[in-house]
C-alpha cells in the first residue's frame, strides 16, 4: 500500500519538524529576544533623543531622524575615539597575531620539549578575568613603583609615564591586550600547523628551501583559512575594546587618548544616559566591524584566487 506508506512518511516528517521547532524554540527565542531584537532596537533608538528627560516623562522624547549621526560626525571626541580604536585594532591586532604565530611555531617545533608546559604558560592569561589582570597591570605600569619601569631602568632604558602620557597610554593598553590574547590564538594556529602534511615540508626541503622559505611557501599559505579566522576574531574582539581602558585609565584619559568607541558609548549611555546618542555610537561601531570583517574576508579570497 504505497499511499499509506507515503502518508505515514509525511506524518513522520511532520512530527520530526514539529519536534525540531520545539527543540529550537527556547534557544532561538532567547537569542532573538535578548540579542537580535535589541540590536535592531538600537538602530531605532539611535533615531531618537532618548535621555533622562524622556525616562522621567515620555512626552520629552523626540524623533530626530539622523541628527544623532550628524552630531557624531561633528563631534571631535567621537573622531578621537574612532581614531584610538583603529590605532588599537591596526597596531594591536597584527602584533597579537604575529606573536601568536611565533609562539605557535615555537610550540609546534619538533625540537621543543615540555610542549604542554609551555602551552599552558602561554595560554594562562587568556582564561583570566580581564578586570582583575588589568588591575594588576595598572600597578605594574605605575611610573614610580611599577615593576615595568624598574625593569626598563635596569636594562638602561628611561622610565615611562605609561598611563599618564598621551603617547604611551595606548601602547600600554596594547601590551596588556597582547599579553592577554595571544595564547588563545596560538592554540588555534598550532592546531592549523599540525594539519599541514609533513610531505609538503619534505618536498620543499628537497627543493633546497631553508627555514624561511618553508615558512613563506608552505606554512603561511597552508595556514590561510586558520589565519583568516584568527584575524577576523581578533579584529572583532579588538574593535569592542572596553574593559582595559575602563580599568586602566577610567575615562579614557589622558586627554581621551585611550577613549575607545565602546567606552564612549558606555559613557554617553550609562554615565549620562544620552541613550539615543549612545545608540548611534553603538551602531557606527556595528557598521565599522561589519565592514572590517567583510573587507578581511574579501581580501583573503582575492589573495587565494
Amino acid at each position: 500500500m504505497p499511499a499509506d506508506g507515503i502518508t505515514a512518511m509525511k506524518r513522520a516528517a511532520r512530527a520530526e519538524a514539529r519536534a525540531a521547532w520545539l527543540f529550537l524554540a527556547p534557544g532561538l527565542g532567547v537569542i532573538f529576544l535578548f540579542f537580535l531584537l535589541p540590536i535592531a532596537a538600537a538602530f531605532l533608538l539611535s533615531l531618537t533623543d532618548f535621555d533622562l528627560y524622556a525616562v522621567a516623562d515620555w512626552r520629552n522624547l523626540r524623533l530626530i531622524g539622523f541628527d544623532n549621526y550628524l552630531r557624531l560626525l561633528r563631534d571631535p571626541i567621537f573622531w578621537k575615539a574612532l581614531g584610538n580604536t583603529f590605532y588599537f585594532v591596526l597596531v594591536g591586532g597584527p602584533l597579537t597575531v604575529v606573536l601568536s604565530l611565533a609562539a605557535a611555531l615555537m610550540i609546534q617545533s619538533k625540537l621543543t620539549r615540555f610542549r604542554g608546559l609551555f602551552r599552558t604558560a602561554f595560554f594562562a592569561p587568556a582564561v583570566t578575568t580581564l578586570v582583575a589582570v588589568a588591575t594588576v597591570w595598572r600597578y605594574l605600569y605605575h611610573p614610580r613603583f611599577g615593576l615595568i619601569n624598574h625593569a626598563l631602568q635596569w636594562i638602561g632604558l628611561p622610565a615611562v609615564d605609561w598611563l599618564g602620557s598621551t603617547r604611551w597610554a595606548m601602547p600600554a593598553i596594547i601590551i596588556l591586550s597582547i599579553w592577554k590574547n595571544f595564547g588563545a590564538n596560538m592554540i588555534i594556529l598550532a592546531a592549523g600547523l599540525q594539519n599541514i602534511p609533513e610531505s609538503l615540508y619534505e618536498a620543499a626541503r628537497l627543493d633546497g628551501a631553508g627555514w624561511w622559505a618553508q615558512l613563506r611557501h608552505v606554512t603561511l599559505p597552508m595556514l590561510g583559512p586558520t589565519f583568516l579566522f584568527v584575524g577576523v576574531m581578533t579584529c572583532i574582539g579588538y574593535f569592542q575594546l572596553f574593559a582595559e581602558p575602563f580599568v586602566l585609565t577610567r575615562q579614557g584619559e589622558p586627554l581621551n587618548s585611550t577613549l575607545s568607541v565602546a567606552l564612549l558609548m558606555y559613557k554617553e549611555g550609562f554615565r549620562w544616559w544620552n541613550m539615543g546618542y549612545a545608540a548611534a555610537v553603538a551602531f557606527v561601531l556595528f557598521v565599522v566591524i561589519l565592514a572590517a570583517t567583510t573587507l578581511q574576508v574579501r581580501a583573503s579570497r582575492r589573495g587565494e584566487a
Partner: protein
Amino acid sequence: MSGRALLMGLALASALSSCAPKTSDRDGVVTLRFWGLGREGEVVRDLMPEFQRRNPNIHVEVQQIPFTAAHEKLLTAFVGRVTPDLAQVGNTWIPELATLGALQPLDERIRRSAVVNPADYFSGIWDTNVVEGAVYGIPWYVDTRLLFYRTDLLVAAGFPRPPRTWNEWVEAMRRVKARGGPGHFAVLLPVDEYEQPVIFGRQLGADLLRDGGRYGDFRSPAFRQAAGFYVGLYRNGLAPVLANAQIANVSQGFARGDYAFYITGPWNVGEFRRRMPPEMQGRWSTAPLPAPDGSRDWPGVSLAGGASLAVFRGAAHPEEAWKVIEYLSEPAVQVRFHELSGDLPPRASAWTAPSLAGDPQVRAFHEQLQRVAPAPKVAEWEQIAAQIWQCLEPAIRGHESVDDALTDLDARVDQILEKRRAVLARSPRAR
C-alpha cells in the same frame, strides 16, 4: 546525566527565585536600603547600632558605593526603577534628581520635625538642596575646598601667615618653588578636578551659565581671567600636570614637600593626620582661600559642597527613611559622625562641640563656610562639570590656548543644554 542536569537546573531556579530582592518584610521588621558613598558609606555603619537599638523594627542595610561611580549608579538605579529608599547624594546632583522626579520633597516632614531645623544650617549649604522652592535633601555634612599648606615651608619662604590675595599667594608659590628645586612644585591641583577653575571663576563673579541655564557662559571676561590664572599655575611650573589617578599617595608627596599648597576638602584633614608621619604633624595647617586682587572680601569664595540625605520617590519605606535622616541629623550624632569620619557637620549647634571648636585645622573651614556659592542648579551640571576640566586640560598641557579651550567648552556645554532648552520651551515650568 541529562536528567540530573535538569534536576539541578530546577533546584537552581528555585534557589534563584528565593534570592529575589527582599520586598517582603518578615516579623514586622522593615528592611531599609541605604546607599552611602565612599568613606561615609563605611563609617555610617558604626552609627547604625544605636539607631537599631532605638528602632528595633527597622533594619538598615547600608551599601557602600565608591564616590567615582556613585552618580552613574544612582542614575542607573533610577532608570532601572531600583532606587534605594534612602541615599547619600552629592548636593550638586540634587537639581538633576529633583528635575527627574526621582526624589520626594521633604518640606512637609521638615515642618513636622522636632530635629531638623533649617535655621540651624549654614544657609549657603541648605540652599543647594532647594529646587524650585521645594527641599529635596537634608545636608549631612559640608564640604568646601580651601588651602592646605605646609607651615614650615611657608615660613622658610618668608611667609609667616597664609596668603590672603592671589598676588600674595603667587609670590609665596614662586618662592617655595625656587627653594624646593627641580622636581618640586608649589601647589597640587589635580587636572581632572573641575572645582578649582570653578572656584576661581566664582571668586571673580563668573556666572558659568547664562539665560536661565540655557547656554554656557565660559567666555565671559570673568571666567576667562579665572581660567587664565588657573592654567598659568601649570604653565609656570607651579603646579604639576597630574591627574588623580597618577598621584600614588597625596600625603606622601605633601610630607616630602613635593608641593606646599593643596586646594582640597575636609576629608584630607583626617587622611593627613592618619597617613603622614608623626614628625610632619604640626608642620601643616589649613586656611581659607585667598581672594582675587582688589577684592576687599577675604576669604575668597569657595564652592558650597557636601552631601545630603535624600528619600527616593520609589522608596518602599519613606517614613522609616525619614527616621534615619532625623537620627543622623541630631547634633550629638553629627559630632560623633565627625569624630569617626572627619566630615564637618552642616549645623551650627554641632560646631560648639569641643572636637570641632577646639580644632585649629578645622576652624578654617568654619570661616570658609560663611563664604560659599553653589554650583549652577541645572540637571546637566555633572556633565558640564566633567567638560570643564576635560576642555581645560589641553590648555594646561599647552596643546591649545585658553581662549580656544573656552570656545570649545561653550560649544560643548551648549550642546549638552540643547535638550534643556527644548524642554523649557515646551513647558516653561518643568525644570
